């Protein structure tokens, strides 16, 4: 007798594996991306060279981009499926309801996830696709080149973040991402079954502090630009 489900990822536990696995992959990306971004503090040369390195290695760039797209699609797909099932699991709502013990982050994973998704779309249009209409600076980011004829990422970012509303949206977006991660980075260990009483509290703390570090790492750039520490 084979007791395994016909499709692992149709089961509730299986879908949570998917959420956790794809979430973990994206956490790694978020950390790598942050490390890349922080080169802004090393000046135009460093960041522009880094950007040129990435963009000139098409064989590397596109597989990574497509993988990320696939991962995020799976993450969204399982989130949608899970949400649908969760909604169906309680067809009539309570007249009165008090969340017990559940952290704000854990209760708002869906909303924070959706807003982060919208933010990512904007972020890609802003700095990757470089749609002029969405940068509110009136500058065509395509036209920015540095003395070595590389794309001048440094100036693009500085110009981009000098728009206070853009920076604000960025800070809010990253903030929500980190709220999402503060729960997600420990919950993924739970979903994968890699948590227990001994390491559980440590993981929870690590996730919260990790989220704070990521938040600070990302928002340090727009804030430094707004404060003219980077120009």
């Amino acid at each position: 007798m084979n007791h395994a489900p016909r499709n692992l990822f149709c089961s509730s536990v299986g879908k949570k594996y998917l959420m956790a696995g794809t979430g973990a992959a994206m956490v790694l990306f978020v950390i790598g991306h942050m490390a890349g971004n922080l080169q802004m503090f090393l000046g135009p040369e460093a960041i522009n060279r880094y950007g040129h390195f990435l963009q000139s290695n098409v064989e590397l760039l596109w597989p990574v981009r497509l993988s990320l797209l696939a991962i995020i699609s799976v993450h969204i797909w399982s989130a949608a499926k899970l949400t649908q099932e969760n909604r169906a699991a309680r067809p009539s709502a309570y007249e009165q309801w008090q969340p017990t013990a559940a952290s704000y982050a854990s209760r708002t994973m869906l909303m924070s996830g959706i807003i982060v998704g919208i933010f990512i779309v904007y972020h890609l249009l802003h700095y990757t696709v470089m749609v002029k209409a969405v940068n509110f600076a009136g500058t065509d980011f395509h036209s920015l080149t540095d003395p070595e004829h590389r794309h001048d990422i440094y100036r693009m970012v500085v110009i981009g973040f000098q728009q206070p509303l853009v920076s604000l949206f960025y800070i809010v977006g990253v903030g929500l991402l980190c709220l999402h991660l503060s729960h997600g980075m420990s919950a993924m260990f739970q979903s994968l079954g890699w948590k227990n009483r001994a390491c559980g509290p440590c993981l929870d703390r690590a996730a919260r502090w990790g989220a704070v570090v990521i938040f600070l790492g990302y928002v340090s750039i727009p804030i430094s630009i707004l404060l003219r520490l980077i120009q």
Partner: protein
Amino acid sequence: MNLTLKVWRQKDARSQGRLETYQAANVLADMSFLEMLDVVNEELIAKGGEPIAFDSDCREGICGTCSMMINGIAHGGLRGTTVCQLHMRHFHDGDTIVIEPWRARAFPVIKDLVTDRGAFDRIIQAGGFVSVNTGGTPDANALPVGKTEADRAMDAAACIGCGACVAACKNASAMLFVSAKVSHLASLPQGRAERERRVLNMVRVMDESGFGNCTVTGSCEAVCPKEISLDFIAQMNREYGQAILKNSGPRQSKGGD
């Protein structure tokens, strides 16, 4: 003390329900919550009304029968306590108390505050046991079980199957209940022989019953009258993964064996 109660009244599974308001006068601090409802019911019957239907049996916090949301919290919010052990000294004169049944697709309302938790039984029927017949078992001390393992099994086995975990979960997930049984039996050598089959079958029936999924919010653990740990959910997730990896047995039994 005098209290205002807003109680969910629903004639049967098919009818629409609504909150009705009742006054509970002269409630004493030493009454249990259910005794307070008994008094309200006695008055309702005397006046020719229909008493509020609610489940209760042992009234000492162990049978798992009593089940109600009090002010939006399963079992009323006193840590490690079922409704029957919640006493009125935790309320104040003039309070308004909202009382609702467990709400989940898998727990349909039968009447008022009474729900059908048969889904829990069906999950256990799918695999929450050790397949031994009566008789022919080895001496109880033949197989030593370390105290740590035995204690962990007991921690999980303490679940009384009341369903508060489902009621409190924003997703109406039964993961805490299912994982408690999976972990209890997987922690003991007697239960290990069929650990893979058990977790796969129990999770399958859990999913089929229409429970939601775990978002690891921890609400279940917080309202659990036996304080079953969220840890067991992680253990079940681990068991499930191992079972998937190991489940390479024959696809069909050959018969004649």
